[in-house]
C-alpha cells in the first residue's frame, strides 16, 4: 500500500502505454558471491552460497545446481567462539531437519515427506545456536575471494493480539490483523512470515518488512496492521485475492524482529523487485550487508502466534 500511494499517478500513465519486446545486449558485469544466510534464536545458522549469473543465461536445473558454491570455508563467530560450518547437500540430511530448514528458508526442500522438493547445498553446524541480543559475524572464503558480514538478533517483540476479520464482500475469505505496540525511543524493524495449515513459513509477495518511521512516525504507538498471506514462490498465485486467507485456514504467524541493516536489505530488494528496478529513473541499489558480495546475512528474533479458523 505504501508504494501505491507514492507512485500510483504513474500507474495511470502505464494504463495508456503499450509494450513491445526489444533486444538488449548487456555486458558481462562482475561475477559476485551471493550469500543467503540466516540465524535465529535457538536455531543453528544456515548459509547458502551461489554466484550472480549473466542476465540472459539459461535457467535449467543443471545450471542451478552448478551455481552453488561448493568447498568454501564458512565461519560464524559470536564474539567468543568461531565455528566452521559444514557443507551439506540437503538430500543427505535427516527428514525432520530438512523440514525445519524448509520452513526456515521458505523453500520446499526434498525430503522423505516431500519427494518433489529441491536439493540444495547449504553450510550449517550443530555447534552454535542463535541467542537474543547477540551479534554474529560471518566469513566466507573461496579461492582467493573473501566476503564478510555482521548481523544481530534483536530481542523479540510480543504482539498484543492476532485475529482475523472477514473480507467485506465474501465470508469465504478472511484478512489477518495484528495489534502492534511499538517500543518507544528506539528504532524497530520487523519481518513477518506465515504458514497456512502447515509449518512451512513463507514471506508475503510484495512487502515483508515494516518499521516504525518510514511510512508514518509511529514510535511508541499501538495500532492495528493488516498482514498479507505468504506464498511459495514456486507455485501459482491467484492475484485477485492474494492478501487473504481462506476462512477455513489455520494460520501460524512468525513475527520477527530484525536489525537496521537487515531491514534495509529487504526494503530495497523488495522495492527493486516490485518495480522492476524503478524503470522511470535510476534503479535503487539493493543495500546488502555483505561486504564484497551480494545478498543477506540476517538475524531474526521470532515470536509465534496461531489463529484457528472460526467455526
Amino acid at each position: 500500500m505504501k508504494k501505491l500511494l507514492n507512485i500510483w499517478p504513474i500507474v495511470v500513465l502505464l494504463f495508456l502505454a503499450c509494450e513491445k519486446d526489444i533486444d538488449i545486449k548487456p555486458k558481462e558485469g562482475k561475477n559476485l558471491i551471493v550469500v543467503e544466510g540466516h540465524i535465529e534464536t535457538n536455531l543453528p545458522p544456515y548459509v547458502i552460497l551461489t554466484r550472480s549469473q549473466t542476465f540472459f543465461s539459461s535457467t535449467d536445473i543443471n545450471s542451478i545446481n552448478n551455481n552453488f558454491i561448493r568447498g568454501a570455508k564458512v565461519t560464524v563467530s559470536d564474539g567468543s567462539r568461531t565455528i566452521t560450518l559444514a557443507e551439506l547437500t540437503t538430500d543427505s540430511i535427516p527428514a525432520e531437519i530438512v523440514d525445519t530448514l524448509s520452513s526456515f528458508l521458505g523453500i520446499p526442500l526434498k525430503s522423505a515427506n516431500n519427494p518433489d522438493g529441491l536439493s540444495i547445498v547449504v553450510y550449517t553446524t550443530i555447534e552454535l545456536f542463535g541467542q537474543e541480543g547477540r551479534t554474529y559475524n560471518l566469513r566466507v572464503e573461496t579461492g582467493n575471494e573473501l566476503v564478510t558480514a555482521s548481523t544481530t538478533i534483536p530481542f523479540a517483540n510480543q504482539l498484543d493480539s492476532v485475529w482475523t476479520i472477514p473480507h467485506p464482500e465474501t465470508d469465504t475469505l478472511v484478512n489477518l490483523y495484528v495489534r502492534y505496540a511499538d517500543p518507544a525511543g528506539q528504532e524497530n524493524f520487523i519481518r513477518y512470515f506465515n504458514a497456512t495449515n502447515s509449518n512451512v513459513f513463507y514471506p508475503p509477495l510484495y512487502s515483508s518488512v515494516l518499521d516504525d518511521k518510514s511510512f508514518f512516525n509511529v514510535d511508541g504507538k499501538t495500532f492495528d496492521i493488516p498482514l498479507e498471506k505468504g506464498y511459495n514462490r514456486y507455485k501459482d498465485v491467484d492475484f485477485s485475492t492474494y492478501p487473504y486467507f481462506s476462512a477455513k485456514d489455520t494460520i501460524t504467524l512468525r513475527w520477527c524482529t530484525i536489525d537496521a541493516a537487515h531491514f534495509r536489505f529487504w526494503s530495497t530488494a523488495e522495492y527493486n523487485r516490485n518495480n522492476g528496478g524503478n524503470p522511470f529513473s535510476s534503479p535503487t541499489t539493493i543495500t546488502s550487508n555483505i561486504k564484497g558480495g551480494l545478498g543477506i546475512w540476517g538475524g531474526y528474533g521470532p515470536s509465534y502466534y496461531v489463529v484457528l479458523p472460526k467455526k
Partner: protein
Amino acid sequence: MRIFLIGILYILLPTLAFSQDLFTVSGTLIDSTSGEPLIAATIFVKEDQSKGAFSDENGVYNISLPPGKYTLIVNYFSYKTDTLSLFVNKDVTLNFKLRPEAQEIEEIVLKGSKPVENVESAELGKMELSAEDASKIPALFGEVDLMKTLQLLPGVQGGGEGNSGIYVRGGGPDQNLILLDNAPVYNTGHLFGFFSVFNNDAISNVTLYKGNMPANFGGRISSVIDFSMKDADLEKLKVDGGIGLISSRLSISAPIIKNKLGIVLSGRRTYIDLLTKPFIDREGIRGVPYYFYDLNGKIIWKPSSKDHVSLSSYYGKDNLQLVFFDGRIKALTYWGNHTATLAWKHIFGEKHIQNLSLVYNKFGFVSEASFDEYNSSLNSTIEDFTFKADYDYLYSARHKIKYGLAYTWHVFTPRKTDANAGVVSFGSGTANTNVLAHDMAFYALDEFSLTEKIKFNVGLRYNFFNQVGAYTLIEPQANGQIDTTTFKSGESVKFFDGWEPRISGRYLINDKSSFKTAFNINNQYVHMVSLTGNSMPFDIWLPSSVLLKPQRGWQYSLGYFRNFKENNYEFSVEGYYKEMKNQLEYRQDYVPVISGEVENDLVVGKGWSYGLEFFAKKKFGNLQGWVGYTLARTFRKFPDINDGKIFPARYDRIHDFNVVAMYDYGKRWTMGATFVFASGQAITLPERRYIITGDVYFQYSDRNSYRMQPYNRLDLSITYKGKETKRFKSSWTLAVYNAYNRKNPYLYFIDAEGNPIDGELTLKAKKLYLFPILPSLTWNFTY
C-alpha cells in the same frame, strides 16, 4: 532594516538624475488593428542614422536628440512604414499605430528576430517565439503549445512524451525560470507533460535565454523562459476560440473604456471525462476520471500617456480520480498553478521608465487516498509573494542602463502528510510543515557601445537567500545520534548570498555578421528533486538550507552570427561550456517514503556540459522555417553515486536535430511539418541476476552506461481557411502526430515470468511506448 533603506534609495534614484542638453522622444508603437504592442520595431532619425531605437517588450521606445528638426521613420515587418516630421525643443511623447500590410500577403515572421537584431544585439543564446509561430506547427491532439515549440530550438530538449521537464544545455528541469507575466510557474505540465499550462490563445510571445540571461533575471542557472500574456484589445470586442479533439478554448477581449481600460479572458478545458461518462462506468467512477482546465485573465488600464497598469492572473487545475481493487483503494489527486501580477509602468521625465510589480504565485499538489478505514493525504506546495522594481534609464544614445531590485517571500510546504486509521491518527514524521525564506536581489547593467563595432552588456547581480524560523532543524550525525535545534519565528536559520557577474559582448564584422561572447555566473536557491526523473506534479520543491547548499553555475559561450540574402536567411553557430555545482539527486538506495525530512534522502555532486548549436532560419516567402542541430554532452559526478565515477546524465542526448517547415499555398491553405531526431536517453540496465529464496534480483551496470533507442518523429498538418467576412474568420486544421508510427521508448523494463527452479524462468526486455500515430482535427474561429 538595511534592506529597506537600500530599497528606498533605488526608488528615489530617478528623481536625482542630473539634466543634459539632450531631449528625449519616446512613446509606444502598437498594431492599429489589435492594439498589441510591437516589439523590437525600429524607429530612427532620417537625418542622423546613428540615432535609432528598438521598441521594447511593451512596444516602448526612447531616442535622445539635441534640439532641431527631424524626420522620424518607424519600421516593422509586414506593416506600412510610418513617417513623421517634428521639431524637438523639449521632451516629447509620440505614439505610433502601424497598419499591417494588405491581408493577402500574410507573411509569417518569427517575431523579434529583426533582420539586423540577431547580428546586432550584444545578447547571446536568446531566442524569441510568438504564439502565432506555435499555431503554424503541427501539435499533439491539435493542442498548440509554445513550450513544445521551444523544444524545437537548438540547445533545448524535452524529455519526450510523458515528461514536462525542459533541459537547456544539459541543465536539470528545475534550472529554468519559467515566468508568466513575471510570475514564476513551478510546474508547467498538464497530464504528465503531454501539454503545458500555457493556453496559446492567451499568450502573446515567449523569450528564451539559454543561460546567458542579463542581470535583471536571476534565480535559476540554466535558462529564463519568459511568457507574456496577450494584452486586452482597447478598441474593439474580439472573440477567439476553437474546438479540438480533447479540449476546447474560448477567449474574449473587450474594451471597457475605449483606449483606456480593457479586459481579456481566456479559458480551456478538456472533456474526455464528460464525453466518456455515458460509456464507461468502473466502480462508481463514470467516464475517464481526468480533466484539466486553464483560465487566464488580464486587465489593462492606461490612466495617462505615461502610465500603463496591468493586472494579470492565471488559474489552472488538473483533477484525477482513481479506484483500485474493487473500490478498496480510492484516490483523488489534484494539482495546479495560481498566479497574479499587478504591474505599473510609469515613464519618468522621458529618460526613465519605472516598472513596479506585485506578484503572487502558488503551485500545489494534493493527493487524498483511502484504503479500507485508512485515510491519508499528501500535500506539497510552494507559494511566493514578490515585489519588484525595475528601471530603464537612457543615460545616452550609447548607454542604456537598467537597475532594480526584487524581493520574494517564499513559503514552502515540501511534504505535509496526515493519516488516520479509524481513531488512531499518525503524525507525518516531519518536524516542520512549512519552510520560510526571504529571497532578495539587486542588479545593475549597462548596455554600451564602446565603438561602432563593439558593444557590451555588462551587469552585476547581488542576491541573498535567508531561511527563517519558526523551524526545527534535524541533523542526523554519523554516529547515529540526531541533533535537533529549534528556531523561533523570524529567527535566521541559514543565510546565503552571492555576486553574479553577467557579461556579454558583440563584435560587428559587417552589417551582416558578428561574433559574440558571454560569461555568466548564476545562483539558484530553490531545488526540485524528481523521483521518477520525469518532472511529475508530485515532485518536491525545496529551498536551500543548512543541509542543501545553493546551486551555482558558470557558463561561457561564443557565437558567430551571419545573415544572407538581405537578412532573409539567418544563420548562427554557438558553442558553450557550463559547470554546475551542488547538484542534487536522491540517494542510490532510496525507497520512497512519505514521512521524514526530504533533505536527508538527497546527495550532492557536480555537473558539467558543453556543446555546439547550429541554427539556420528562412524568414520570407511562402516556405519558411528553421533547422537546428545540437551536438552536446552532459555529465555528473557524485561521491555517493556510482562509486564516485563520472556518469552521463540521463538526458545526455548527444545529437539533437530539428526541422520545422511552414508552407503557404495560395490564400487558403497552410501546411506544416516538423521532424525531430534525438539520441537515446542514458539508462542503467541489469547485467547479472541472482536468486534469494526463490525470487530473482537484478545486479545493475554502472549508472547510465547504456542508451535507449533514439527518439525520432515526424508531424504533419494542413490548415484550410474558411471564407472570411469582415468580422468572422475560421479555419480547420488536420494534423498527424508521429506520422510514421515510430514506437519511441518511454521506458525499458524487464518482464520476469516463471520461476527459476523449474527452469522456466524467462527474462524479457521490453519497452513501453506512449503514442502511436495520432490524427487530430481542430476548428478555430475569430470574431
